[in-house]
């Protein structure tokens, strides 16, 4: 068994080394495909992070009248938390709101002066609601509207003020998600087909040689094996090269992406996940290499 495997490896390496032009051509195509594949992974990461950031920025706040009892507000908080689609409800008391306001404007002497002169807390207590999806806010607000006994202590909700913006952001998030998924799906299929056809063509160009092996009574694994090994060598080289090529590109575009996705650096993500991404490349390339070589040989040689 060891002898057979070592012979298969030897012939796989020989095919790769001696068919220099075919090897270069195949690796070039695979390199393009794997680079697109890796670009897709990074694109998904960035769009998902961007969408998550955008979703996080959308919220609805309920402001309560200054007479509202804390007990009543906490009851509303608990009822809201029980709602489906509600991700989080944060209670901001009047004192906390004032502390936050002071902190935000600590460098503004005019505001500080005004607050001192007021000698009272002018801010309202509020509940800050975050939903799972931007489209859920209208439902949550409708639920609030139905609770007639809560209305006397509610001063205002920000939803009505920001309704248009929230709906538009919601639409943008939905479209970006669908577009990202569609693009990934389409380009993945294209990458798979290109790899499959490239390896198939490489094997097709050797069909005469393969038929001679068959006529000599070579065992099937002795015919298929070396081509699978060659396919793996192509994939590994293309995967390593694509990682090397992508690195400087990521470094170059990362600062520009900060304008769109401010919380994440693509370059940091790439460096932190380098081994994982290299692993994806290898698994994707090698799996395609093996499957394509098998299918192509069986198709052309009817083994």
């Amino acid at each position: 068994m060891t002898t057979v495997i070592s012979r298969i490896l030897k012939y796989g390496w020989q095919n790769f080394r001696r068919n220099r032009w075919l090897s270069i051509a195949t690796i070039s195509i695979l390199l393009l495909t794997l680079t697109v594949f890796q670009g897709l992974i990074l694109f998904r990461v960035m769009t998902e992070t961007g969408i998550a950031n955008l979703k996080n920025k959308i919220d609805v706040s309920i402001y309560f009248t200054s007479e509202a009892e804390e007990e009543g507000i906490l009851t509303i908080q608990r009822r809201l938390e029980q709602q489906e689609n509600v991700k989080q409800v944060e209670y901001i008391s009047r004192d906390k709101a004032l502390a936050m306001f002071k902190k935000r404007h600590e460098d503004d002497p005019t505001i500080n002066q005004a607050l001192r002169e007021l000698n009272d807390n002018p801010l309202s207590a509020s509940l800050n609601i975050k939903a799972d999806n931007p489209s859920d806010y209208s439902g949550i607000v409708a639920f609030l509207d139905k609770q007639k006994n809560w209305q006397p202590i509610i001063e205002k909700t920000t939803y009505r003020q920001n309704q248009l913006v929230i709906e538009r952001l919601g639409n943008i998030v939905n479209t970006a998600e669908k577009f990202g998924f569609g693009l990934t799906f389409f380009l993945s299929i294209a990458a798979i087909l290109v790899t499959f056809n490239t390896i198939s063509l490489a094997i097709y160009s050797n069909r005469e040689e393969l038929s001679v092996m068959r006529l000599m009574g070579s065992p099937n694994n002795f015919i298929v094996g070396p081509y699978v090994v060659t396919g793996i060598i192509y994939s590994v080289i293309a995967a390593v090269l694509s990682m090397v090529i992508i690195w400087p590109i990521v470094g170059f575009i990362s600062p520009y992406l900060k304008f769109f996705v401010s919380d994440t650096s693509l370059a940091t993500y790439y460096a932190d996940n380098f081994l994982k991404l290299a692993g994806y490349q290898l698994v994707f390339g090698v799996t395609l290499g093996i499957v394509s070589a098998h299918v192509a040989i069986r198709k052309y040689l009817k083994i």
Partner: protein
Amino acid sequence: MINFINVSKIYKNDSAALDNVSFKINSKEFVTLVGKSGAGKSTIIKLLIGEEKASRGKVLFGEHEVSRLDHKDIPYLRRKIGIVFQDFRLLPLKTAYENIEFAMEASGKTKQEIDEVIPQVLDMVGLADQSGNFPHELSGGERQRVAIARAMVNRPALIIADEPTGNLDPGNTWEIINILLRINELGTTILLATHNKDIINNLGKRVISLDNGKIIRDEKKGRYILK
């Protein structure tokens, strides 16, 4: 060793490549198949190596009934047969030595056997000095000698030579035929398909003549007689 019993091969368009053919070839015989293009020579060879299946009748090779062999058993049959083609069919990216080595490795021979046998075989076909050359660096005659070395290296019971001299000049033609005769003297059965009148008339061996898929003559010491 080889036994064709009432064998017919009919292709899909109803053309009969072989029509109720029967013959026997004994071990260590040297037999020439002769006939024009389309007479049925290649079909006999294809049936013998399991590349085609007979439409009717039985094709026996040793203990195998070739026409009933399972697809996965065909490689085992072919390792008992060495084949030489008109167009050599060497592996272009392997040297002369590696072409022969591949045949031995494919049939599971050890490294020691390979190192021992290949120099002897190359010497026998007169290519000891060209063992490191790739096929494109060899002449037609030399390529055919590599092909013969490859066919005989696993000591098969039968060597089939399908028009092995078709692409060669008269000098090389006789060198190839002489190598085949020497292999036959060492005990290997040879089945030679050719339409070279000179070879057939000078060999003085058994000749099976085919025409339109039928055997029209089978003589112990045959001559080239075709309409």
